[in-house]
């Protein structure tokens, strides 16, 4: 199963919509343990992506993703700007010049994106950040593919793993980000960054699930 360039841009369109729909939800999650702007900031960034996308829509998938990353970095601000910006830029780098993506490309870009986030944020799994959704998703994706399951099933499993990662963030204290200042008080609250990461992964899974192939 392959993803074409139009699949990628369709997925981006849905992500823009999902972030818009969840703007208040993500902001409310952030209000409990952070500074109440996660949804607002991401929505501002993805709206800018929507506005600027026509400028790079004729390029290859790698260039499109790199441009998405640059728009996010220059419009989101906060911590999620450089983190998601780096994520998309690194994903773009990993699939430079490509017009279709196979399973290996998808794993490679996700891997590159996640390691970019870890470097930029100096965080790891269990710190109550977006990594808590992304890392289990990547691990599950690789595992499912290595077991011979198809891309639909593998991405579906990855989205479930991301969701479990989000639930896990409720039970742990934050070690990174503004929520870390609350220490033990952050326990019981779901991490907004992990939640937005899950929403994006779930969007990809739902899209791939509907593909007729």
């Amino acid at each position, binding site marked *: 199963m392959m993803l074409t360039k139009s699949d990628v841009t369709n997925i981006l369109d849905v992500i823009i919509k999902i972030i818009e729909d969840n703007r208040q939800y993500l902001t409310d999650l952030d209000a409990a343990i952070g500074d*109440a*702007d996660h949804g607002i900031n991401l929505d501002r960034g993805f709206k800018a992506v929507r506005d600027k996308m026509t400028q790079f829509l004729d390029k290859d998938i790698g260039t499109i993703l790199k441009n998405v990353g640059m728009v996010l970095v220059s419009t989101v601000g906060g911590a999620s700007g450089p983190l998601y910006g780096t994520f998309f830029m690194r994903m773009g780098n990993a699939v430079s010049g490509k017009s279709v993506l196979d399973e290996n490309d998808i794993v490679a870009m996700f891997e590159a994106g996640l390691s970019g986030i870890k470097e930029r944020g100096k965080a790891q799994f269990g710190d109550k950040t977006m990594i808590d959704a992304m890392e289990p998703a990547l691990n599950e994706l690789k595992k499912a593919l290595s077991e011979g399951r198809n891309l639909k099933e593998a991405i579906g499993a990855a989205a479930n793993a991301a969701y479990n990662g989000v639930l896990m963030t409720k039970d742990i204290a934050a070690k990174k980000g503004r929520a870390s200042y609350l220490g033990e008080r952050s326990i019981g609250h779901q991490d907004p960054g992990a939640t937005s990461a899950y929403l994006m992964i779930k969007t990809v899974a739902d899209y791939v699930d509907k593909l007729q192939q």
Partner: protein
Amino acid sequence: MKKLINNPEEVVKEMVTGLLYAYPTYLKKLDNVDVVVRKTSPVEGKVGLVSGGGSGHEPAHAGYVGKGMLDAACLGAVFTSPTPDQIYEAIKAVDGGKGVLLIIKNYTGDVMNFEMAKEMAEMDGIKVSEVIVNDDVAVENSTYTQGRRGIAGTVFVHKIAGAKAEEGAELEEVKEVAEKVIKNLRSMGMAFTPCTVPAAGKPSFTLDEDEIEIGIGIHGEPGTHREKIKSAKEIVAELMDKIVADLPFNDADEVALMVNGLGATPLSELFIANKEVNEYLVGKNINVYKTFVGEYMTSLEMSGFSITLLKLDEELKALLDASADTPAFKQL
């Protein structure tokens, strides 16, 4: 939400416009980015000082752009750090050939965005150094590697590093004195009421009528714990106990003191707090060399205040006393 705004999305843009109308002789704005720089930028032969952060802390940071303090302030969205491209433009605009010092408050987003900008400017061959302010003792017992937040004490870093740069010091020397300030700087704050970020439209946390939040930051984020309301004397004592014990400040130390309002506490109450702080310090035989009472780094309309102590030596005293002329901080 009842606010004097037109549109939540336009708050920063319109605020900057109004700021420039107010201080045309001090400030100019860079094209296409929310960066305010000295009218005379770049100042040849002087290390450039760039700071900034989210908006909503006025008069920080743009209010401190001017002679003896900052060369540029980068204005992020409300309570959101500025973006790397903005900071990069600021660095380029103020580099007078001796390099640029970034004064960053220790928040994940601020550090990441400033560091990305630093990498971009270094690729252009500009010398860039950074210092990270972390004066808030509220989270002193945190085991988290993240470290402490930077709050109102940052204004002392702007002042003293600014004075050093104005003397014509080299980048390394300016950085060194900024780090000396940070090492000797401790603050802590509390809130009576939360604030409302315009784009969010509702308060960032809720407090009962008789509750106060201790150890808050400057972004409407909740503090370390919640208590029942008590007297000004008791509140000051609680904050001072933590601040003084932390460095620690000792008998016969000389300090600069800042009692900083967070946006909605009247000056009368800040002076009451200042009375309590001074009496507390007399009890410890710590001498106040210079006092600043007012709104230096606010948190929108949050009601509450923070206390900052900076332990001084002769060098810091002289630089603190040096003249400064900015919209929000004037000293002859």
